[in-house]
């Protein structure tokens, strides 16, 4: 690696840092899941138990969705150091995002031994809309992707070690990282075993020539996975997975009935062979899987869930289409083991997401960003190599490509910072911070405070922003029973009550209360003492003193 490249790598990582940390605390607003992770970390520090009183859990009960727990533990030092606030909740995610940029550089270098290619990969990941979206915030998935990258890097690196001891050390470290990913996020629990299988298949010659260290790797991994296995088999985590799983979707079943009904003999041999659960769920699954390769998803509009996306922006830039196409063409010409691995990763990447019924889903398939970035970077590298040595074309070509990349990136920044919170004002919990700060000023005046539950899980944000003492909360609340999507919430703690605002009934039954509702829930003739606006200028709440 020459000196110039070192500077370039430093600049790229610095760019990654700026893009991930700039206005990290406020943009976008903190959402309920992040608040829950942060508050659980806070609660563990204070009491050794999570918000619901479970001591040092492996999965966090949270909204009864049993979040995989490692992120909360990684967050503990930051909450301890910086206190409970948006920064401390988000720094680990952003930090692992920056480190992932470094890791992709190392991984590409490890696999392809090409410095330029590796640098471009790092640059592309640094500015990737997909990677940025989930780096900016306390998203478990991004941390899992980091551990996955680290584990794979160490695993491939172990191929180079000749001494048994060194090889085993690297493999044990690799195992630790991969297992850490499994403790961090659901989707990788499907992806990593499949990636493992594909690695065994692709590198069978290397692995079976000297199998002993890999057996140690396998045994070690199994051992450190035991607590997770135990937790999954005994806890409520599986029910959450079932709640979003493909089989929770009744569409395929209804379709079976419809299709069999259209056959002349409904219970005929033919109707049953062609239209049954196996076939229909299979087709839904494969359809979901292919949807992650839709151009509309990748290059135009991204995920359909607002929280996971930037308006009018795909998971990648439109210009990536060109680089990916060139990349694929030249991969076909040189289909070595490293490419076999990258391609198999690309194919495996969306499988976990396809097993759920909201597809395509950028969150659950985020690991795809790595193979896609690598292929796209390979495309640009190939183009640059082609241009090299053609004087005038080199100049025109590079200028043209640079302008396109910069324009794509600039439009992304424009959309992210100037439009996202206005176009999707309900994608995150905007306005709640402002609300809690206001309520805290004079809550002592009221005996009851009624807050609308129109926006996701308000209780956790009230706990979070007022740093409510966990010991006072843990055993003094009840979780509601699960809703259709498998989530629970807390509707009462202290003097707070969360629910739909039936204004007149609350007004009549609870004198001396504070009523907080959305603009639509509050009659404008009421005694509104404050209107709460989010950072994006939207009016979110009307506060009524009763």
């Amino acid at each position, binding site marked *: 690696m020459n000196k110039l490249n070192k500077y370039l790598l430093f600049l790229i990582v610095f760019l990654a840092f700026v893009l991930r940390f700039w206005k990290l605390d406020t943009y976008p607003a903190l959402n309920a899941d992040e608040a829950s992770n942060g508050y659980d970390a806070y609660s563990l520090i204070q009491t050794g138990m999570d918000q619901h009183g479970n001591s040092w859990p492996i999965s966090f009960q949270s909204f009864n969705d049993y979040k995989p727990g490692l992120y909360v533990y990684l967050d503990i030092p930051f909450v301890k150091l910086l206190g409970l606030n948006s920064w401390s909740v988000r720094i680990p995610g952003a930090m692992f995002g920056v480190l992932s940029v470094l890791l992709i550089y190392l991984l590409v270098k490890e696999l392809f031994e090409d410095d330029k290619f590796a640098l471009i990969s790092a640059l592309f990941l640094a500015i990737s809309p997909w990677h940025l979206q989930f780096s900016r915030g306390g998203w478990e998935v991004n941390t899992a992707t980091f551990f996955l990258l680290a584990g794979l890097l160490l695993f491939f690196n172990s191929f180079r070690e000749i001494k048994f001891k060194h090889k085993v050390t690297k493999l044990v470290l690799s195992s630790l990282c991969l297992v850490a990913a499994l403790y961090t996020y659901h989707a990788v629990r499907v992806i990593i075993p499949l990636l493992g299988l594909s690695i065994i298949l692709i590198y069978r010659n290397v692995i079976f020539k000297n199998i002993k260290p890999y057996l140690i790797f396998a045994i070690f991994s199994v051992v450190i996975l035991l607590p997770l296995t135990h937790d999954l088999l005994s806890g409520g985590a599986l029910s959450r997975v079932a709640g979003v799983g493909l089989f929770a979707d009744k569409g395929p079943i209804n*379709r079976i009935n*419809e*299709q069999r009904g*259209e*056959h*002349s003999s409904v219970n005929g041999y*033919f109707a049953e062979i*062609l239209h049954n659960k196996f076939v229909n769920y299979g*087709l839904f699954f*494969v*359809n979901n*899987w*292919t*949807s992650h*390769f*839709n*151009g*509309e998803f990748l*290059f*135009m*509009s991204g995920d359909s869930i607002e929280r996971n996306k930037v308006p*009018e922006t795909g998971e990648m830039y*439109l210009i990536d289409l060109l680089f990916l196409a060139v990349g*694929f*063409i030249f991969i*076909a*010409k040189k*289909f070595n083991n490293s490419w076999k691995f990258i391609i198999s990763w690309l194919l495996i990447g969306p499988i976990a997401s396809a097993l759920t019924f909201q597809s395509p889903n950028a969150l659950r398939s985020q690991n795809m960003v790595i193979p896609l970035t690598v292929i796209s970077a390979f495309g640009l590298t190939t183009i640059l190599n082609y241009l090299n040595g053609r004087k005038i074309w080199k100049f025109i070509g590079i200028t043209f490509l640079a302008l396109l990349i910069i*324009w794509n990136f*600039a*439009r992304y920044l*424009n*959309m992210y910072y*100037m*439009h996202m919170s*206005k*176009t999707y004002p309900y994608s995150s919990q905007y306005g709640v911070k402002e609300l809690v700060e206001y309520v805290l000023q004079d809550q002592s005046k009221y005996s009851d405070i009624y807050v609308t539950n129109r926006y996701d899980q308000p209780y956790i944000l009230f706990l979070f922003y007022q740093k409510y003492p966990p010991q006072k909360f843990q055993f003094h609340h009840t979780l509601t029973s699960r809703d259709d999507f498998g989530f629970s919430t807390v509707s009462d703690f202290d003097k707070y009550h969360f629910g739909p605002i039936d204004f007149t009934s609350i007004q009549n039954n609870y004198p001396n209360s504070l009523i907080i509702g959305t603009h639509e829930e509050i009659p404008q003739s009421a005694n509104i003492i404050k209107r709460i606006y989010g950072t994006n200028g939207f009016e979110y709440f009307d506060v009524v003193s009763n």
Partner: protein
Amino acid sequence: MKIINKIFSSQGLLLIALVLAGILRLWHLGSIAPSLTPDEASLGYNAYSILKTGRDEFGKSLPIVFKSFGDYKPGLYVYLAVPSVAVFGLSEFSTRLPSAIFGILSIYLIYLIVRKLFANYKSLAIISAFVAATNPYLIYFSRGAWEANISITLTLAGIYFFLKSLDENKYIILSSIFFALTLIAYQGAKLSTAIVLLLLILINWKVFWKIKLNYLITSFVLGVIISIPIILTLFNGQAQRLTIFSVFSYPRLPEEIQTYSDGYFYLFHSDQLNYFRMVMSRWFNFYSGHFLFFDGDTANPVHTSPYQGILLLGDLLLLPIGLFTIFKNKLNKGTLFVILLLILSPFSAAISRDQTNAVRSLLTAIPLVIVISFGIYEVINYHKIVILAFIAVWIFGFIYFLDSYFVHLPAHNSNYWRYGYKQMVDYVTPLESKYKDIVFEQSFNQPYIYFLFYQKYDPAKYQKQANLVSSKYKGDVGFETKLDNVRFERVDWSALQFTNGTLVVTGPTIPPEVISRPEKYKFLYELKYLNNIDVAFEVVEVK
């Protein structure tokens, strides 16, 4: 042994492919799809009218562009249907037969083109004949009076003779004629034919200009002469219907534009960029698994069969393998043509307002078939067990398609196919003399054309009374309001209650005040769609 050798010779296999294609395109052609669309009925009746009188339904003598519903259909299909209507009489089958025959011809032309483009790949041509014969996209549009299908066959002929002309120059004239005829076959052919022609010339740039000048000039002049009637429609307003279907006729709302006045409007949010995004997004939709394999053209359910894409499920594996095989080797003129055609041809659909539009992008069936053939070409070298697995997946996908088309389409999509008009005409016709007035629900389905078609209404008699009321919307289709004592109008019960002795044929929505007065309204008949659930028509007599 000799017989077996003969069967497996390329002629033998080609014959099998053609017979297979024939069976898949002709079997139950008249009854599946279950009914004629208004366009099909119009093409059929105009052919009948030409046959009997030499004039179209409006009395125009041998037109090249048919006014029809005011959409001005290029007329080649009508003339192709004349002999078939002459032989088989006016029926669904005879109306659809030209498309089916052209669909079978396509298989042979694809075989010829692939043999010419990829002489080095032995057996690729015969593979592509089988792929084309069993391809859902091509089968679907061969089974119905789809003008686009005629246009594809002509395009294939144009491509074949173009390639041939590079060796034997005189064929360029034939090529030009076929390309020009595509314009007379189908409205949407303008862009796709231009794409094909441009690609062929660019890819064979040097060889093309070595063609003898007099051949080039002759073919150019012939091409222009044939396309003149179509070129004229661009100026006399008859092509206005295209603007309704164009994506560029649907700008953003002012409120939406307002949100983007952030000081960077021209850099990041301009109208041009917005249209570009809309076109790209439709272009991407074409390549989605949703469209290609699983759901098909959900924006136009009449363009695909239920829960079936334009390709077979097995092609999900073969298509990427085919691309991989093509790119593994150095690109040559043939593969370059196929790849560029694959990229460019969906644009004819991408500029349409619909999210997907299978009929407009039908040309893409050709590069898809060839890429899939490359996939098979590669897979036959794999391990035996892998091949068996591929065969199993392929067979499942093929049966799934046959089931979707022949079993599910009639039941599931009969409403989209405008099922019921034939039955209603058959029901009403014997009653026409019994009632003073018959009111038939007016709709975009153009009920009058079904009366003409199924009554085999004397064209000479109709031509005198044809009176298409044009739509108040520019470029939209018009309406026929009256045929003898049958009036086509929006059923208005408050006015009808005073018209004793009227027969009313209406859609399924009957207001309660009609149902609650059996002394006034007598229900005579109810027709359901083929799913046996939804009602298509009700017949009521006003006493």
